[in-house]
């Protein structure tokens, strides 16, 4: 059974079809990139996969359960329990330290545990920066904190929206290395990106155009 399956998904805003009969399957432990030009429906798809929006038509099966008709309260619970989010603009709570930002995610999920949060920061190489505020961290460091925050609750799926869009090459490589590490550990990754290099790091790339799946590319050179 696939971890995620979008079945005949459409999202319609008046006359506009942001997504038009999309079918996608993502297996457990798979690393998938979603590419496409602006207006291709990437954001809409990301919102639906991230349980922040519902499709107009079709089914979204997460772990075999259709979540396309769930209430927003239930979707919040599913997002909290199963999905780790990484954003292009990092988005940290600016008055909380790095470790506290990681603990926020634990707080909404279950129980804050500072030691565990510090370990997660250690995994992204930022344990010594744990007590720094976001304003005292570089962009790359902030994104690494966000990776730590996304993986702290051991989600089944990590959904990253342009995770390297605001990073220089060195930091982009650090983040991609972290993704490789997560992939090796069996985490399922869906990465929405404009960047072909980031897409090439994934096992498979789904290209969206005009709200439809234009093509799927298997990365033959994928390195574990």
């Amino acid at each position: 059974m696939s971890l995620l399956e979008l079945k005949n998904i459409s999202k319609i805003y008046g006359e506009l079809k942001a997504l038009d009969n999309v079918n996608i399957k993502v297996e457990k432990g798979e690393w998938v990139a979603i590419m496409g030009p602006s207006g291709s429906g990437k954001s809409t798809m990301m919102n639906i996969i991230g349980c922040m929006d519902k499709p107009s038509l079709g089914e979204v099966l997460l772990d075999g359960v259709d979540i396309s008709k769930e209430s927003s309260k239930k979707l919040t619970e599913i997002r909290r329990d199963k999905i780790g989010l990484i954003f292009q603009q990092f988005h940290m709570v600016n008055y909380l330290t790095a470790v506290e930002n990681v603990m926020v995610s634990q707080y909404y999920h279950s129980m804050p545990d500072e030691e565990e949060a510090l370990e997660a920061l250690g995994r992204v190489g930022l344990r010594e920066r744990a007590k720094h505020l976001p304003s005292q961290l570089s962009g790359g460091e902030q994104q690494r904190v966000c990776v730590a925050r996304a993986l702290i609750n051991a989600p089944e799926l990590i959904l990253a929206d342009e995770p390297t869009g605001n990073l220089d090459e060195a930091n982009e490589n650090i983040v991609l290395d972290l993704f490789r590490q997560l992939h090796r550990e069996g985490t399922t990754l869906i990465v929405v990106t404009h960047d072909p290099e980031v897409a090439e790091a994934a096992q498979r790339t789904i290209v969206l155009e005009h709200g439809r799946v234009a093509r799927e590319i298997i990365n033959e050179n994928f390195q574990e």
Partner: protein
Amino acid sequence: MSRRKMFLKMVTASLLRRRSRMLIALLSIAIGATILSGLVTIYYDVPRQMGAQFRGYGANMILVPSGEEKMTVEKAQECLTVIPKDQLLGATPYRYVNVEMTSRQRTFVAAATDFEQVQSTSPYFAVEGRWPEGDREVLVGKETAETIGVKLNNVIELSYKPEDTYVKNTLNMTVVGILETGGDEEAYIFTTLKAMDALTGVSGQLDVMEMSVSAASEELENYAAEISENNSDMSARLVKRVTKSETTVLAKLQSLVFLVTAVVLLLTMICVSTTMMAVVSERRKEIGLRKALGASDQSIRAEFLGEGMFLGLLGGILGTALGFAFAQVVSVNVFGSSITFQPLLLPITVIVSMGIAALSCLLPIRRAVEIDPALVLKGE
């Protein structure tokens, strides 16, 4: 770390590390709490302060015999025990007798009294010269002094003929003061009770006892009723012109204070609500992020309410201190006396401030809950 500890950490960090905006909200609450605590202090202190002011207008209760019989000093003193000592500011006995001034061959009303007590029950009595200190010294009312042409330090001879004798008792008295009151008292001659006893040959009799009691009108009525009930031959009455105007002025002042407090609290609520609304707008992304991370609407409500109530707590404590200082300044400048701090005022002000802050947060919280978590995607 427990969830509660993390909750407190987030709430306090939000206020302490994001000072500028929250300082405005804190100041709004503190100012509201200052006015609240200040005015409530004045509200409760006004009766005492005004009571003290009104005591300057004379006695507010009198004790008179209910029948033809005169009352005795002992009986009057016994009646006074009904009133607590700390409330009884003064009790002045009066005995009125018609006496003759020998040199002028005219009759005047002589009022025998206790001059020390007179000064506490009738502080508005203005004496030119000095108050009598011995039994051979008298005060003469201004009107009488002008009529008979008596001046300070003149010696006058007062005489009285008891009903059952043919012989007049006479006493030479020195005029040590001329009394000005603007009332009937200016027609009297004032002596001590002892001098009057000597002149009349009858001792221990009184016509009236004037009392100045520091109590609200209702309490005064209770004392009067108790005295009249316990003593069939005595009657205690309120001096209506004093007690009624005191009650009316107090009621009006308290209504005014209540109204001003209500208006200030309403303004505080509007100010805090506006500030919190701006805070929610400013923190849209953060709220969106929290929701994206899995915060329920309930969590968002709890966090903003927590911040509001924490502000209310700080503002309430600050406001109590400032409010007391404010009430003290008002009291010293308006009433000329200081006030004592009421410990109960701290919890009351803090609870009201927290309540006002919580109420002010309701609309901003609604806005916060409506924020779409998807806004954190794509850097929107």
